[in-house]
């Protein structure tokens, strides 16, 4: 059973990191969007491996089911031709890569020094504690989050609405 868990983790980790790299380096945007969806799915797998089944379900529902579709809509409605003079701005790419690697290396080293705590916790899913927390201790942030979503929805609609006067 240990081996199976490690194998699954390895496969998911390769999936996440590989698809993430592909999103950044692949040329075609639609392929990048679908690889991003694949990253989301592998992330959901990681959540399942950790035993957080409700969060895994939410991850697939929200990220793969909604955000990927939104991004695909965004990709489809903004087609662009070739930009020949874009090469002028390419020189910042290696610098950005070097900076990110320079910051990532110490953080990664720090991450690998964390210890697995020796606390034995009882198993079971995370549905009950999650619900009790959200609707108990964190009810006010929950309501604020719903207000935020309402504001975002109204804002997005207003931003994309065409002016009706021009049509007449």
């Amino acid at each position, binding site marked *: 059973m240990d081996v199976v868990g490690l194998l699954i983790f390895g496969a998911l980790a390769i999936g*996440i990191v590989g698809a993430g790299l592909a999103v950044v380096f692949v040329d075609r*945007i639609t392929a990048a969007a679908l690889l*991003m969806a694949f990253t989301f799915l592998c992330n959901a797998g990681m959540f399942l491996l950790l035993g*957080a089944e409700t969060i895994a379900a939410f991850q697939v529902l929200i990220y793969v089911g909604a955000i990927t579709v*939104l991004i695909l809509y965004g990709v489809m409605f903004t087609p662009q031709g070739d930009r020949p003079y874009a090469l002028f701005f390419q020189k910042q790419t290696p610098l950005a890569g070097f900076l990110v690697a320079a910051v990532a290396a110490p953080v990664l080293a720090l*991450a690998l020094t964390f210890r697995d*705590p020796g606390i034995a916790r009882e198993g079971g899913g995370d549905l009950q*504690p999650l619900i009790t927390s959200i609707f108990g201790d964190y009810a006010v942030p929950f309501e604020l*989050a719903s207000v935020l979503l309402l504001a975002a929805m109204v804002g997005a609609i207003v931003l994309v609405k065409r002016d009706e006067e021009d049509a007449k």
Partner: protein
Amino acid sequence: MTAVPLPAFIAVSTLLFFIGAAGVLMKRNAVVILMCVELMLNAANLALVAFSRRYGSVDERGSVFVVFVFVIAAAEVAVGLAIVLSAYRNRPTVDVDELHQLKG
């Protein structure tokens, strides 16, 4: 499930986060930048859930935080794409290097 050590999860999360950060800095298409931001948010979620489940907090506070991160990510993508589409309607480009009319 104690087979996979916690540092492994955090390492994956770190790698994904910095890949996303590199993407935000390197890419010029605004929609691709939004995608890389989503990658970073996913990395943060993975770290939060890993710590919450492994350190055994009884009330799953890490997972509650993750739920709110889901909410904020969804709202951000919606509004961000609305902005990108509005800008595209103005000038048919989503290249962030060319959307610089407010500069300086």
